[in-house]
Protein backbone atom coordinates (compact mmCIF):
# COMPACT_ATOMS: atom_id res chain seq x y z
CA UNK A 1 0.00 0.00 0.00
CA UNK A 2 1.34 3.41 -0.91
CA UNK A 3 2.25 5.53 2.07
CA UNK A 4 -0.29 8.18 2.88
CA UNK A 5 0.84 11.64 3.80
CA UNK A 6 -1.20 14.34 5.38
CA UNK A 7 0.82 17.35 6.42
CA UNK A 8 -0.28 20.34 8.49
CA UNK A 9 0.49 23.29 6.24
CA UNK A 10 -1.96 22.50 3.40
CA UNK A 11 -4.71 22.01 5.97
CA UNK A 12 -3.94 25.33 7.66
CA UNK A 13 -3.88 27.03 4.25
CA UNK A 14 -7.27 25.53 3.47
CA UNK A 15 -8.66 26.84 6.76
CA UNK A 16 -7.24 30.29 6.06
CA UNK A 17 -8.64 30.27 2.54
CA UNK A 18 -12.07 29.69 4.06
CA UNK A 19 -11.68 32.55 6.52
CA UNK A 20 -11.53 30.40 9.64
CA UNK A 21 -10.96 32.49 12.78
CA UNK A 22 -11.08 29.87 15.56
CA UNK A 23 -10.33 26.18 15.95
CA UNK A 24 -12.31 24.81 18.90
CA UNK A 25 -10.43 21.73 19.88
CA UNK A 26 -9.76 18.78 22.10
CA UNK A 27 -6.63 16.80 21.27
CA UNK A 28 -6.46 13.43 19.63
CA UNK A 29 -3.63 11.41 18.17
CA UNK A 30 -4.96 11.58 14.62
CA UNK A 31 -4.88 15.37 14.43
CA UNK A 32 -2.09 16.11 16.90
CA UNK A 33 0.20 16.98 14.00
CA UNK A 34 -1.82 20.16 13.47
CA UNK A 35 -1.41 21.39 17.02
CA UNK A 36 2.02 23.07 16.93
CA UNK A 37 1.26 24.70 13.59
CA UNK A 38 -2.04 26.02 14.80
CA UNK A 39 -0.41 27.51 17.86
CA UNK A 40 2.06 29.24 15.58
CA UNK A 41 -0.61 30.53 13.18
CA UNK A 42 -1.45 34.05 14.26
CA UNK A 43 -4.59 34.43 12.15
CA UNK A 44 -6.30 31.46 13.80
CA UNK A 45 -7.13 31.23 17.46
CA UNK A 46 -7.08 27.88 19.20
CA UNK A 47 -9.71 27.27 21.90
CA UNK A 48 -8.89 24.11 23.88
CA UNK A 49 -11.86 22.63 25.77
CA UNK A 50 -12.45 19.95 28.42
CA UNK A 51 -14.98 17.78 26.61
CA UNK A 52 -15.96 17.64 22.98
CA UNK A 53 -19.61 18.52 23.57
CA UNK A 54 -18.39 21.99 24.53
CA UNK A 55 -16.88 22.53 21.10
CA UNK A 56 -20.20 22.85 19.26
CA UNK A 57 -21.58 25.26 21.86
CA UNK A 58 -18.52 27.49 21.79
CA UNK A 59 -18.43 27.33 18.01
CA UNK A 60 -22.13 28.23 17.82
CA UNK A 61 -21.49 31.23 20.07
CA UNK A 62 -18.57 32.35 17.92
CA UNK A 63 -20.69 31.97 14.79
CA UNK A 64 -23.52 34.01 16.31
CA UNK A 65 -20.95 36.70 17.02
CA UNK A 66 -19.82 36.76 13.40
CA UNK A 67 -16.70 34.57 13.58
CA UNK A 68 -15.92 31.49 11.56
CA UNK A 69 -14.98 28.59 13.80
CA UNK A 70 -14.23 24.97 13.01
CA UNK A 71 -14.43 22.10 15.42
CA UNK A 72 -11.46 19.71 15.61
CA UNK A 73 -12.09 16.53 17.60
CA UNK A 74 -11.75 12.74 17.46
CA UNK A 75 -14.59 10.43 16.37
CA UNK A 76 -14.82 9.24 20.00
CA UNK A 77 -15.48 12.87 20.88
CA UNK A 78 -18.18 13.08 18.23
CA UNK A 79 -19.97 10.25 20.04
CA UNK A 80 -19.49 12.15 23.27
CA UNK A 81 -21.12 15.22 21.67
CA UNK A 82 -24.40 13.70 20.51
CA UNK A 83 -26.80 16.18 22.02
CA UNK A 84 -24.66 19.20 21.14
CA UNK A 85 -24.52 18.15 17.50
CA UNK A 86 -28.27 17.64 17.52
CA UNK A 87 -29.20 20.83 19.32
CA UNK A 88 -26.43 23.26 18.41
CA UNK A 89 -25.59 21.97 14.95
CA UNK A 90 -28.55 20.43 13.22
CA UNK A 91 -31.46 22.16 14.97
CA UNK A 92 -30.12 25.69 14.61
CA UNK A 93 -28.94 25.18 11.04
CA UNK A 94 -25.35 25.98 11.91
CA UNK A 95 -23.05 25.65 8.87
CA UNK A 96 -20.38 24.12 11.06
CA UNK A 97 -17.45 22.21 9.66
CA UNK A 98 -16.34 19.48 12.05
CA UNK A 99 -12.90 18.04 11.43
CA UNK A 100 -12.99 14.63 12.99
CA UNK A 101 -9.97 12.40 13.65
CA UNK A 102 -10.95 9.00 12.26
CA UNK A 103 -9.59 6.76 15.02
CA UNK A 104 -9.40 3.13 13.95
CA UNK A 105 -9.75 3.76 10.21
CA UNK A 106 -7.65 1.11 8.49
CA UNK A 107 -8.47 1.49 4.77
CA UNK A 108 -8.38 -2.24 4.18
CA UNK A 109 -11.86 -3.26 5.18
CA UNK A 110 -11.10 -5.02 8.45
CA UNK A 111 -12.01 -2.46 11.06
CA UNK A 112 -11.69 -3.75 14.58
CA UNK A 113 -11.99 -0.47 16.46
CA UNK A 114 -15.66 0.26 17.16
CA UNK A 115 -14.80 3.97 17.12
CA UNK A 116 -14.22 3.62 13.38
CA UNK A 117 -17.05 1.17 12.75
CA UNK A 118 -19.71 3.47 14.19
CA UNK A 119 -18.46 6.74 12.74
CA UNK A 120 -20.07 6.72 9.31
CA UNK A 121 -23.34 5.02 10.33
CA UNK A 122 -23.83 7.69 12.97
CA UNK A 123 -23.17 10.50 10.52
CA UNK A 124 -25.69 8.86 8.19
CA UNK A 125 -28.23 8.66 10.99
CA UNK A 126 -27.84 12.38 11.61
CA UNK A 127 -27.95 13.14 7.89
CA UNK A 128 -24.55 14.82 8.13
CA UNK A 129 -22.52 14.62 4.92
CA UNK A 130 -18.80 14.02 5.19
CA UNK A 131 -15.59 14.11 3.21
CA UNK A 132 -12.66 11.78 3.78
CA UNK A 133 -9.28 13.53 4.04
CA UNK A 134 -6.38 11.07 4.04
CA UNK A 135 -3.59 12.73 2.08
CA UNK A 136 -2.43 16.17 1.04
CA UNK A 137 -4.20 15.53 -2.27
CA UNK A 138 -7.50 15.45 -0.41
CA UNK A 139 -7.28 18.71 1.53
CA UNK A 140 -9.33 20.67 -1.00
CA UNK A 141 -12.25 18.57 0.21
CA UNK A 142 -12.19 20.75 3.30
CA UNK A 143 -13.27 23.62 1.05
CA UNK A 144 -16.01 21.40 -0.37
CA UNK A 145 -17.19 20.90 3.19
CA UNK A 146 -17.30 24.65 3.85
CA UNK A 147 -19.18 25.24 0.58
CA UNK A 148 -21.69 22.54 1.32
CA UNK A 149 -22.23 23.69 4.91
CA UNK A 150 -22.89 27.24 3.68
CA UNK A 151 -25.16 26.15 0.87
CA UNK A 152 -27.25 23.81 3.00
CA UNK A 153 -26.88 25.72 6.28
CA UNK A 154 -26.09 22.56 8.17
CA UNK A 155 -23.08 20.82 9.75
CA UNK A 156 -20.67 18.93 7.49
CA UNK A 157 -17.83 16.68 8.63
CA UNK A 158 -14.31 16.03 7.36
CA UNK A 159 -13.00 12.67 8.50
CA UNK A 160 -9.26 13.05 8.99
CA UNK A 161 -8.23 9.53 8.11
CA UNK A 162 -4.46 9.51 8.49
CA UNK A 163 -1.91 10.08 11.15
CA UNK A 164 0.80 12.52 10.21
CA UNK A 165 3.31 10.67 8.04
Amino acid at each position, binding site marked *: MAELHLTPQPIIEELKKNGVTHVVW*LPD*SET*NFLYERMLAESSIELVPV*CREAETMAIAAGLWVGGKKPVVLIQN*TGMFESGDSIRGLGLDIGFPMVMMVGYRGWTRHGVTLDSAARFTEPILHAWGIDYYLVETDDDVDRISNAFDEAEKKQTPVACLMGAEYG
Partner: protein
Amino acid sequence: MHRFSATKMLLEHLGDRPVVANLGPSTDELWHSGDRDRNFYTYGSMGLCSSIALGMALSTDEQVISLDGDGSLLMNMGTIGTIGREVPSNLIVVVWDNEQWAQTGYQASHTAFGTDLEQVARGCGIEKTATVRDEEELLSVFHQALDEEGPWFIVAKIQEEEYLPVSPVEPEMTLYRFRKSFGD
Protein backbone atom coordinates in the same frame (compact mmCIF):
# COMPACT_ATOMS: atom_id res chain seq x y z
CA MET B 1 7.59 12.31 40.61
CA HIS B 2 6.98 9.87 37.78
CA ARG B 3 3.79 7.89 37.34
CA PHE B 4 5.39 4.50 36.69
CA SER B 5 7.54 4.53 39.79
CA ALA B 6 4.70 5.96 41.89
CA THR B 7 2.28 3.34 40.55
CA LYS B 8 4.68 0.56 41.54
CA MET B 9 4.97 2.10 44.99
CA LEU B 10 1.20 2.29 45.46
CA LEU B 11 0.79 -1.32 44.28
CA GLU B 12 3.18 -2.43 46.99
CA HIS B 13 0.97 -0.86 49.62
CA LEU B 14 -2.58 -1.39 48.47
CA GLY B 15 -2.83 -5.10 49.08
CA ASP B 16 -5.64 -6.84 47.27
CA ARG B 17 -7.81 -3.78 46.75
CA PRO B 18 -9.40 -3.19 43.32
CA VAL B 19 -7.84 -0.51 41.12
CA VAL B 20 -9.35 1.23 38.10
CA ALA B 21 -6.94 3.03 35.74
CA ASN B 22 -7.44 5.88 33.30
CA LEU B 23 -6.95 5.22 29.59
CA GLY B 24 -3.47 5.58 28.10
CA PRO B 25 -0.24 5.60 30.11
CA SER B 26 -1.99 5.18 33.48
CA THR B 27 -3.40 1.86 32.33
CA ASP B 28 -0.22 0.74 30.57
CA GLU B 29 1.96 1.59 33.54
CA LEU B 30 -0.39 -0.18 35.93
CA TRP B 31 -0.02 -3.32 33.82
CA HIS B 32 3.76 -2.96 33.69
CA SER B 33 3.81 -2.38 37.45
CA GLY B 34 2.25 -5.78 38.00
CA ASP B 35 -0.70 -7.40 36.29
CA ARG B 36 -3.25 -8.58 38.86
CA ASP B 37 -6.83 -9.87 38.86
CA ARG B 38 -7.95 -6.73 40.57
CA ASN B 39 -6.65 -4.27 38.00
CA PHE B 40 -9.32 -2.77 35.78
CA TYR B 41 -7.66 -1.34 32.68
CA THR B 42 -9.55 1.12 30.48
CA TYR B 43 -8.82 1.78 26.82
CA GLY B 44 -11.39 4.44 26.15
CA SER B 45 -14.34 5.88 28.06
CA MET B 46 -12.29 9.00 28.62
CA GLY B 47 -13.50 10.84 31.70
CA LEU B 48 -15.20 7.84 33.24
CA CYS B 49 -12.44 6.14 35.24
CA SER B 50 -13.49 7.61 38.57
CA SER B 51 -17.15 7.09 37.65
CA ILE B 52 -16.47 3.37 37.19
CA ALA B 53 -14.60 3.33 40.50
CA LEU B 54 -17.50 5.17 42.16
CA GLY B 55 -19.93 2.52 40.96
CA MET B 56 -17.67 -0.16 42.37
CA ALA B 57 -17.28 1.67 45.66
CA LEU B 58 -21.06 1.88 45.96
CA SER B 59 -21.33 -1.85 45.34
CA THR B 60 -18.79 -3.16 47.85
CA ASP B 61 -17.40 -2.48 51.30
CA GLU B 62 -13.86 -2.81 50.01
CA GLN B 63 -11.78 0.26 49.40
CA VAL B 64 -11.62 1.04 45.68
CA ILE B 65 -8.80 3.02 44.10
CA SER B 66 -9.13 5.14 40.97
CA LEU B 67 -5.94 6.15 39.15
CA ASP B 68 -7.30 8.96 37.01
CA GLY B 69 -5.76 11.65 34.77
CA ASP B 70 -6.14 15.43 34.69
CA GLY B 71 -7.40 15.52 31.10
CA SER B 72 -9.93 12.81 31.76
CA LEU B 73 -11.22 14.37 34.96
CA LEU B 74 -11.53 17.70 33.17
CA MET B 75 -13.69 15.96 30.58
CA ASN B 76 -16.09 14.84 33.26
CA MET B 77 -15.64 17.16 36.20
CA GLY B 78 -19.22 16.33 37.06
CA THR B 79 -18.02 13.02 38.41
CA ILE B 80 -16.31 14.92 41.24
CA GLY B 81 -19.70 16.44 42.08
CA THR B 82 -21.30 13.01 42.07
CA ILE B 83 -18.62 11.68 44.39
CA GLY B 84 -19.18 14.69 46.65
CA ARG B 85 -22.87 13.94 46.68
CA GLU B 86 -22.64 10.19 47.21
CA VAL B 87 -19.80 10.48 49.74
CA PRO B 88 -18.51 6.89 49.35
CA SER B 89 -16.27 6.42 52.36
CA ASN B 90 -14.35 3.63 50.58
CA LEU B 91 -13.30 5.51 47.44
CA ILE B 92 -9.76 6.81 46.94
CA VAL B 93 -9.14 8.88 43.82
CA VAL B 94 -5.53 9.53 42.84
CA VAL B 95 -5.17 11.94 39.93
CA TRP B 96 -1.97 11.65 37.93
CA ASP B 97 -1.75 15.34 37.08
CA ASN B 98 0.96 15.90 34.46
CA GLU B 99 -0.84 19.09 33.32
CA GLN B 100 -1.11 17.50 29.88
CA TRP B 101 -3.15 15.35 27.60
CA ALA B 102 -0.04 13.22 27.36
CA GLN B 103 -1.36 10.28 25.41
CA THR B 104 -2.29 12.37 22.38
CA GLY B 105 0.96 14.32 22.11
CA TYR B 106 1.71 16.08 25.43
CA GLN B 107 -0.51 19.11 24.80
CA ALA B 108 -0.88 21.34 27.87
CA SER B 109 -4.20 20.82 29.67
CA HIS B 110 -6.19 23.30 31.75
CA THR B 111 -4.36 22.33 34.95
CA ALA B 112 -1.27 23.95 33.40
CA PHE B 113 -3.26 27.20 33.33
CA GLY B 114 -4.59 27.37 36.87
CA THR B 115 -7.36 24.80 37.14
CA ASP B 116 -6.83 23.25 40.56
CA LEU B 117 -8.58 19.91 40.75
CA GLU B 118 -8.07 19.62 44.50
CA GLN B 119 -9.98 22.86 44.98
CA VAL B 120 -12.71 21.58 42.65
CA ALA B 121 -13.02 18.50 44.87
CA ARG B 122 -13.21 20.68 47.98
CA GLY B 123 -15.84 22.81 46.28
CA CYS B 124 -17.83 19.63 45.71
CA GLY B 125 -17.79 18.89 49.41
CA ILE B 126 -14.99 16.32 49.45
CA GLU B 127 -13.09 17.06 52.64
CA LYS B 128 -10.22 14.58 52.51
CA THR B 129 -8.03 16.04 49.79
CA ALA B 130 -4.36 16.64 49.13
CA THR B 131 -1.93 17.73 46.46
CA VAL B 132 1.40 15.95 46.56
CA ARG B 133 4.58 16.43 44.58
CA ASP B 134 6.85 13.55 45.50
CA GLU B 135 6.59 9.88 46.36
CA GLU B 136 7.20 10.37 50.03
CA GLU B 137 4.26 12.78 50.34
CA LEU B 138 2.10 10.55 48.18
CA LEU B 139 2.79 7.47 50.25
CA SER B 140 2.12 9.28 53.48
CA VAL B 141 -1.29 10.58 52.29
CA PHE B 142 -2.10 7.26 50.69
CA HIS B 143 -1.57 5.45 53.99
CA GLN B 144 -3.78 7.99 55.68
CA ALA B 145 -6.42 7.36 53.00
CA LEU B 146 -6.25 3.62 53.61
CA ASP B 147 -6.69 4.20 57.36
CA GLU B 148 -9.28 6.96 57.41
CA GLU B 149 -12.75 7.04 55.90
CA GLY B 150 -13.05 8.93 52.63
CA PRO B 151 -13.86 9.74 49.98
CA TRP B 152 -10.29 10.77 49.31
CA PHE B 153 -9.14 12.93 46.43
CA ILE B 154 -5.38 13.09 45.99
CA VAL B 155 -3.81 15.14 43.22
CA ALA B 156 -0.35 13.79 42.43
CA LYS B 157 1.66 16.25 40.37
CA ILE B 158 3.92 14.26 38.04
CA GLN B 159 6.41 14.78 35.24
CA GLU B 160 5.83 12.88 32.05
CA GLU B 161 8.43 10.41 30.79
CA GLU B 162 8.79 8.03 27.86
CA TYR B 163 5.79 5.79 27.31
CA LEU B 164 6.02 2.11 28.02
CA PRO B 165 4.65 -0.31 25.43
CA VAL B 166 0.86 -0.60 25.31
CA SER B 167 -0.25 -3.34 27.68
CA PRO B 168 -1.23 -6.53 25.88
CA VAL B 169 -4.57 -6.95 27.58
CA GLU B 170 -7.75 -8.58 26.33
CA PRO B 171 -10.55 -6.42 27.71
CA GLU B 172 -13.14 -9.24 27.86
CA MET B 173 -10.80 -11.53 29.79
CA THR B 174 -9.74 -8.76 32.15
CA LEU B 175 -13.32 -7.82 32.87
CA TYR B 176 -14.30 -11.43 33.48
CA ARG B 177 -11.34 -11.92 35.81
CA PHE B 178 -12.02 -8.67 37.60
CA ARG B 179 -15.70 -9.39 38.20
CA LYS B 180 -14.92 -12.88 39.36
CA SER B 181 -12.51 -11.45 41.92
CA PHE B 182 -15.48 -9.83 43.68
CA GLY B 183 -16.99 -13.25 44.27
CA ASP B 184 -20.39 -14.45 43.11
